[in-house]
């Protein structure tokens, strides 16, 4: 099986490379070759399926290809991707945007879930501290994303329930649910959209960021 695959791949690779000899293999040819190698190199394990990496959506595809090409998406495509993702946002089913910041902090601290060694029955974490500062007391935070310390305070959200705060509350929910709705190729995982976090968890994180009593806003 191993030798066969190698032979087929070598043959395929050679054929593809020869076909594009003058200018090198095209993006389409390389993508096809990559898919072949991926399918032969990876297998399902526990709840993690190979389809997780072979069946990514158009958003991920477009952003990955832009990344490989070294050129950012053009304006038109970027706006279109943002619109599609904005439309896909699931707003809170009960209209409640703000949860318990204490639970939010636990979710932000937890990076568990979605690896093949994780128990699929356990709740996923948000892994927020991997990229963001939030509570000043937590000194172990990443700087991939902007600091969210004083997130609500800076934005003048003194009462998340007031009409004046509505836009910011909704933006915060939306950003956590689907970051690419506001920035087409954002590195931030689409926590709600991709099923990493559920509605309740997102609600708690919004609380962590916007509740005036949250340590984030002290």
């Amino acid at each position, binding site marked *: 099986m*191993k030798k066969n*695959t*190698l032979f087929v*791949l070598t043959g395929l690779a050679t054929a593809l490379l020869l076909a594009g000899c003058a200018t090198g293999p095209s993006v389409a040819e390389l993508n096809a070759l990559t898919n072949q*190698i*991926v399918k*032969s*190199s*990876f*297998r*399902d*394990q526990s709840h*993690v*399926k*190979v389809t*997780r*990496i072979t069946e990514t959506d158009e958003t991920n595809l477009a952003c990955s290809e832009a990344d490989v090409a070294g050129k950012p998406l053009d304006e038109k495509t970027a706006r279109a991707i943002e619109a599609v993702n904005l439309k896909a946002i699931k707003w809170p089913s009960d209209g409640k945007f703000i949860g318990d910041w204490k639970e939010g902090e636990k979710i932000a601290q937890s990076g568990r879930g*979605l*690896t*093949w*060694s994780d128990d699929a029955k356990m709740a996923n974490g948000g892994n927020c501290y991997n990229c963001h500062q939030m509570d000043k007391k937590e000194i172990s935070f990443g700087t991939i994303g902007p600091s969210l310390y004083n997130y609500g305070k800076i934005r003048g959200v003194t009462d998340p329930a007031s009409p004046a705060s509505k836009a910011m509350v909704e933006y915060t929910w939306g950003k956590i649910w689907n970051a690419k709705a506001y920035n087409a190729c954002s590195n931030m995982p689409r926590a709600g959209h991709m099923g990493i976090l559920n509605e309740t968890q997102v609600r708690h994180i919004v609380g962590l960021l916007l509740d005036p009593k949250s340590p984030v806003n002290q």
Partner: protein
Amino acid sequence: MLTKNPGDGLGFAAWPAYRVSNGQMWSMQLRLNDCYRQQRFPYPGFGSDATIALSTYLGVNAKGAASIAPAIKR
């Protein structure tokens, strides 16, 4: 940075190594397996084309660097 030579005893040149986190001696294959796992990938086969290609790429980029295998890694 995967495309540059990290230097003597670093990256590719530090494997195989005793990995303290696992209390075991790990090969590059096993290290790559864990790398993919934490990225939430499906399971890369041992001796698969993807892992062989990737470690070859790392090895070629590290050409000239001194190996410190067997090393100790966290």
